[in-house]
């Protein structure tokens, strides 16, 4: 084996990001690494490239134990990485990027001609015919990726880690990139390939490893693994004990209720294809799909974070405006985002202030919520949602993830919205809080609020939803209700080979 990882563990502030993970990579193979957000993929990569230092476990390269402390050290050892966001500088020329740090010099000054020659040599064999003296930024992302690969290979030359390199490429560009990857594999490099496009994974990889919740679930030859099985591994199948199954008879037919919101033909080019969506009063609609499938993007269009290019939204009284979050809030929407830290919490404000923020913003600055009322609201929700804190004046940044999520929920509950969108409400939350939030979603629903819930935890999604919409490749591809809502059918809908050959690669 070229690279052998044994028992790798890494924790952040008490939460285990990687739990005794084994991983190996042979020379001349492409090994795909799969998993949803928070599965531990990026932590594993960062331990390999020296960006993080592991807590426990061993890493061996060509049989020798290594201990990279920085990316450049890993590079010198032979491990190079190319990230999704191109890790070169668009404001330098291709040649400058390729030769950065080892420019040929003459009399102390850079020899431009020799640099051009060196850059051309480095690109030799990649099938690129470009002017190396133009700015890197002038070229397509695909070409930038290949330039980044060329640099990484010439610097490192043993292990190449490709972290979602195809995220923003079209089919032709992906093919171009794959040709390069195959050539490198045939030259004997070991390549770790990370992508959430399953079609691409099946096309390019020799072996697949699936991570979930910081553990390795399976490693298998690509030829021997079944698509459906693979998705089950990624999303988790076994009923997790803390999520009780829905009480079967308790779910009345909600399709008969009046439609609360009706979205027609909502879409934006390159983000999500136009879709229709009706939400009934007191209904919970689940949105299932893999990471990057367009599930979060759907929610962003509905809430006006990104403006829809087509379509319209109506409620019982006629058209409503959802052009930006403020308009959506005025229409009775609420949104608890996936990335709590950057989009949700205002870290240096107190729990109380975070709870009243949306309500205050909608009232306007002229009509402050009296302090007594703020205190009442905060105390009410701290108790109702069981937010564990020493008091309402504690900064929200000092709370655990689960409690932060509850505060965000409280922020919206204080608004009493008609339609609440929850994007991955249970991500990164410990087991106890997890179950509480699931219970809370049900309670809201029983009070008549309409909800849209996005989650990669299928069991949980089935448990809370009346209906589930499956998103794949930026399209809404299936709608499941009643008995059809099983992990099995959802996984099959996600796994169905792509009907649109344009986008498959």
């Amino acid at each position, binding site marked *: 084996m070229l690279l052998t990882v044994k028992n790798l563990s890494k924790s952040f502030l008490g939460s285990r990001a990687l739990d005794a993970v084994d991983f190996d990579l042979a020379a001349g193979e492409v090994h795909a690494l799969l998993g949803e957000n928070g599965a531990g993929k990026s932590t594993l990569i960062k331990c390999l490239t020296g960006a993080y230092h592991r807590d426990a476990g061993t890493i061996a390269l060509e049989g020798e134990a290594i201990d990279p402390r920085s*990316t*450049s050290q890993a*590079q010198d050892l032979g491990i190079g990485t190319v990230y999704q966001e191109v*890790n*070169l*500088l*668009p*404001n*330098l020329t291709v040649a*400058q*990027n390729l030769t*950065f*740090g080892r*420019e040929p*010099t003459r009399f*102390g*000054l*850079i020899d*431009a001609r020799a640099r051009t020659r060196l850059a051309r040599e480095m690109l030799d064999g990649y099938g690129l015919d470009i002017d190396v003296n*133009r*700015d890197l*930024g*002038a070229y*397509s*992302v695909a070409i930038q990726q290949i330039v980044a690969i060329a640099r990484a290979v010439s610097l490192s030359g043993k292990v190449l880690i490709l972290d979602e390199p195809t995220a*923003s*490429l*079209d089919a032709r560009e992906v093919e171009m990139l794959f040709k390069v990857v195959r050539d490198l594999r045939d030259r004997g490099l070991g390549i770790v390939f990370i992508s959430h496009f399953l079609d691409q994974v099946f096309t390019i990889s020799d072996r697949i490893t699936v991570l979930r919740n910081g553990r390795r679930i399976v490693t298998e030859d690509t030829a021997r693994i079944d698509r459906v099985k693979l998705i089950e591994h990624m999303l988790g199948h076994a009923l997790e004990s803390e999520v009780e199954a829905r009480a079967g008879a308790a779910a009345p037919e909600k399709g008969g209720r009046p439609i609360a919101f009706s979205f027609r033909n909502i879409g934006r*080019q*390159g983000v999500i294809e136009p879709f229709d969506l009706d939400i009934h009063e007191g209904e919970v609609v689940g949105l299932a799909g893999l990471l990057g499938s367009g599930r979060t993007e759907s929610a962003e269009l509905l809430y006006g974070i990104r403006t829809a290019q087509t379509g319209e939204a109506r409620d019982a009284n006629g058209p409503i405006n959802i052009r930006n979050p403020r308009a959506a809030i005025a229409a009775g929407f609420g949104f608890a985002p996936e990335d709590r830290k950057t989009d949700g919490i205002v870290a240096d404000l107190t729990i109380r202030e975070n709870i009243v923020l949306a309500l205050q913003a909608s009232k306007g600055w002229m009509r402050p919520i009296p302090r007594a009322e703020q205190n009442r609201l905060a105390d009410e929700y701290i108790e109702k949602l069981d937010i564990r804190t020493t008091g309402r004046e504690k900064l929200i940044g000092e709370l655990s993830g689960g409690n932060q999520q509850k505060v965000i929920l409280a922020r919206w509950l204080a608004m009493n919205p008609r339609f609440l969108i929850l994007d991955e409400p249970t991500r990164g939350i410990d087991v106890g809080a997890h179950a509480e939030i699931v219970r809370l979603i049900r309670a809201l629903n029983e009070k008549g609020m309409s909800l849209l819930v996005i989650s990669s935890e299928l069991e949980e999604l089935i448990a809370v939803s009346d209906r589930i919409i499956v998103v794949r490749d930026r399209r809404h591809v299936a709608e499941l209700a009643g008995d059809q809502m099983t992990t099995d059918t959802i996984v099959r809908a996600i796994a169905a080979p792509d009907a649109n050959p344009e986008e498959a690669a």
Partner: protein
Amino acid sequence: MTNARLLPLFATIAIFMLALVICFIQFPNMFSTRVLGNLLTDNAYLGIVAVGMTVVILAGGIDLSVGSVIAFSGVFIAVVLRDTGLHPMVVFAMLLAITTAFGAAMGGLVHALVMPGFIVTLAGMFLARGAAYMLSIDSVPIQHEFYDVLQSYILLPGRGRLTLIGITMLVVFVIGMLIVHKTRFGTAVYAFGGGEATARLMGVRQGRVTVMIYAFSGFMAGLSGIVFSIYTGSGYSLATVGTELTAIAAVVIGGTLLTGGAGYMFGTFIGVLTMGLIQVYIVFDGTLSSWWTKIVIGALVLAFILLQKALLHLARRGNEVAYA
């Protein structure tokens, strides 16, 4: 459009040409070697400090201390020459060592404190100005025979004077171009301005480069101070107030992106000349008042910032459509 990065430079050159044409139409006799020689002489100190500023801005930083450092330099030279028997060249060497170390210290603080450059150099601005005051509050004349040599010039046909300090500025610009475009340090400067995180990933040693950038600016501010003392023949602690802004304006009008990563040393040279030309024009006109210089420069700075913003916007939109 081969390289969008070149567009602001073209705009810079176009504006300079336009200014030349306007001047030529209105005042045909402006184009004597005398006026051109003076253009170089009068703007020598500004050009030299703008070379340092270009490097700092290209790297995504800013140095607000240079105006004060120039004033300090003048006072330091004048006071040391007055009170000791040292030769001016020795004093110059001492001064350059001081200002370079001063710049390096500011760079070190910027790096160590992870604070924006403009705050740290703001403190540097106070410090240098205060130090100048402490040396002397009054204007100190420099009377050293060597200064007569330094103030010498080559007589050009048409009674123009190509002064030593004018030549110094030209040489400094050539050196600046070599450093920015032809050394590893220069490439690192651009890399830094393009994205600190990425530059680090590519192996730039952040601390070292930050210190070097501000040290370079400090050195150039010191050199500019020497030139300014030759130009005025004295040292005055209240001199060159606001020169940092003029230098920043010259860099921006020269087509360099104020947030770093894109621009050319040659553009700064044209920027300095453009600003000089505006001043000459106002002097020739006679009816226009000097404050128009500030307003025109402010308007030009705004125009270039908006141009850069628009270019960035277009580039981003282009990408979105291309990879949608």
